[in-house]
């Protein structure tokens, strides 16, 4: 069954309208409860700095590689730039990874990491922003206006989506890989993903928003998506007795190195939280 935006609206709107003036304002969730599809979940982390791939992982005994690179930017099998060998069955010679990437080697040796080498842009742009944009839109030639959707957006169209939040971006706004995805949700803080009404009239304010964002335009749709996401996350998040969201606790007691300077760890913790909340996240 194809997932359409209308299905999101129809699934939610009916139940919520009746709650507007009722006294107990625990918003009931959707009449048609969608069970999240159990299966593989794709977590995409785009490291947005620059990286010299051939100084990270390379075929150290390849004649062309040795000729093209000076010793400073080349991984070798001895000396100062000696790399760590990665066994592989595809190539008769030696692939080595940079000595400082021992952690990655460990994952590789445990067979949980694969590396796809030398896949990227054919276009040799040295513009950082253009390169990111091409990668995120999944195009290899510069054609800025013609492809106006992100690769993840197109990937999702090919999937069977069952949950209400199939694609979630952590951060203030959605990345270009989700461009034109009307269902994609961006969240900067899962436990803080609530409408911060504060007076007795708060619930009526929240209900009123649904009346405001009810027509069919991009702005209206943006508001409606947000209202739906708010209700859905609220219905799924673990709460204390007084209704406040509980801080996330991992089952294996994994500790995320949360750090105010770099938010990778807190974003990944939120990804774990969302997956465990069973909201149907697939990407």
């Amino acid at each position: 069954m194809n997932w359409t935006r209308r299905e999101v609206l129809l699934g939610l709107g009916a139940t919520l309208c009746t709650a507007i003036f009722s006294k107990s304002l625990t918003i009931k969730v959707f009449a048609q409860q969608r069970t999240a599809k159990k299966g593989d979940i794709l977590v995409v982390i785009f490291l947005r700095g620059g990286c010299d791939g051939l100084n990270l992982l390379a075929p150290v005994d390849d004649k062309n590689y040795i000729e093209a690179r000076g010793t400073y930017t080349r991984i070798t099998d001895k000396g100062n730039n000696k790399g760590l060998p990665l066994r592989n069955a595809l190539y008769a010679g030696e692939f080595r990874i940079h000595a400082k990437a021992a952690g990655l080697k460990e994952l590789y040796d445990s067979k949980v990491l694969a590396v796809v080498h030398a896949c990227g842009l054919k276009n040799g742009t040295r513009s950082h922003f253009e390169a990111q944009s091409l990668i995120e839109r999944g195009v290899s030639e510069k054609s800025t206006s013609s492809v106006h959707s992100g690769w993840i957006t197109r990937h999702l169209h090919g999937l069977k989506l069952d949950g209400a939040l199939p694609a979630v971006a952590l951060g203030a706004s959605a990345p270009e890989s989700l461009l034109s995805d009307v269902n994609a949700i961006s969240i900067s803080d899962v436990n803080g993903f609530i409408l911060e009404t504060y007076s007795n009239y708060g619930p009526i304010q929240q209900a009123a928003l649904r009346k405001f964002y009810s027509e069919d335009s991009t702005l209206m749709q943006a508001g409606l998506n947000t209202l739906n996401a708010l209700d859905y996350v609220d219905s799924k998040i673990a709460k204390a007795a007084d209704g406040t969201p509980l801080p996330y606790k991992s089952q294996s007691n994994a500790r995320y190195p949360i750090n105010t300077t770099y938010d990778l760890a807190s974003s990944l913790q939120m990804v774990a939280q969302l997956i465990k909340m069973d909201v149907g996240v697939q990407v």
Partner: protein
Amino acid sequence: MLPHSFDSRNESLVQLSRRDFFTASNAVPGILGTGASWFLGACGQVQRTSSTTAHATSDSLELHAINRLAYGPRPGDVEHIKQMGFHAYVEEQLNPQDQDTAILEDKLKTIKLHIEYEAGDDYPGLSEDRPLINLNKPLSELWKLVDPKKKMDWSERIRPAEEVRIATWLRAVYSNWQLREVLTEFWHNHFNVNAFVDERIAATWPLYDREIIRRNCFGNFRQFLEDVAKSTAMQYYLDNATSRASPANENYARELFELHTLGAEHYFNHFYNRWRNVPGALEGKPIGYIDQDIYEASRAFTGWTINDGTDSGRGEVFPDTGQFRYFEGWHDNYQKRILGIEFDPNQPPMMDGHKVLDLVAFHPGTAKHIASKLCRRFVCDNPPVNLIDTVSQVWITNQNAPDQIKQAVKAILLSDEFACSTAQKVKRPFELVASFLRATSADFTPNQNLIDSLAQMGYRQFDYPAPTGHPDTAEHWLGTNVMLWRWNVILRMFQEWFGVAVFNLEQQIPARLRTSREITTFWIKRLVGRSISRETFNTLVEFLAHGKGLDVSPGGTIDDVKQRLHDLVALICMTPEFQLR
């Protein structure tokens, strides 16, 4: 009952017929129209109408002006522009003076911004509310904050940048010279620098804001470009301060071409990677640039650096003042070729760099790039090509004039396309909050809570992480997280802990307005200024009435009504209509 005091500055409530006030059910396609999934039709397709024949949903030219040249209307602004006339208002805003509103001057003098840190090895901790003391300091004073020998907390070193944030907010809300504020924001984004990555940038930020951006914001672009190139902020942000011959540091040259002047749309390296092949290059007029131009331009700027006590490695140790200087010893003085033009070797000091700035500043591609950005700021997200062309022409014609930018902006503001682009821009976070504060006549005290809340929305004032600056198209400002925070920021404004605004809503309502319907209509006109959907209007009136009739006073105790009045104002500012300007 609501208090009876009357504010004589209030505009009288015009008796609008119900037909005038609501959008027709089949409204002209636009942002709020039905059936439009891209909410902007190509802006150039909208027919120009004079204000007398404009359909009921379009803003008056005066309201439109205050939403684009300014951060939205304060009470009385629309009437003021009607009286003086749109053209006179444009002229006034294009020619700002230094004298400003009394309330702005007063707030700049008296506001306090908290600063707090723990004791370090060589300094005590502190927690205090401190006035803005760094805004007008000269470089010699600000540079002292950078000295690593003077032990102090990081918060002290970056304090000047934080003070500029607060001052910028106060100006956006209280200055009479609104167009200058709008353009200052534009150019800060165009020449984006992240002030907080380096204390040398943050400590000297008042200079970047005052001497570079504000001084040039209506002026000559070639001059602007040179001032930016030599600024302490840009020199450190894009690493030109440490760029020496062979190999030069590419960062500044790349952004100079890709962001500041020609723009990525004129980057042709995927088609041509040899200079001869770029169309026009052999005649000295290449249509765009390739990587080789960037490499050569980087070489041209070697030696442009800052006196920061560095040992040059060539005998001289630089003085430590933070001033720009040129050091010949670091300059790559051999011949170059940039944009098809040969540069002879061994040119006089700084001539290579000056020549590069000339080439990029005067390239027709630059006129197009900047004209497009200005049109996007003032008109709509996809400005019509003929407007961009017209503005490019004005830009080029005035390229040596001291008021080049002013002329280009004027051409936009007086265009038909501007006049017919009402309500076509989605407010970015800064505009949303500034317009809210102006329309509610709030007593405004910007603080770190405000800065942090806007950062949640993706608006990072002076610490935007990429040199591209904040994007200016709606799609970047309508994600779920942004939408949620549009609403949450408004809601926080009404909460005491936030400490940003104090309201006086009841006193602003004319005494003769008593019913829920009348009061709601008053606030919609004050805050949004244009017609809204019937369903939204009814929902708002019903909210205020809270069970009582719509044409009687709102029900409940005085405190209930006061609370609902504040909540009503919040709701109006959470409507889709309020997100547009």
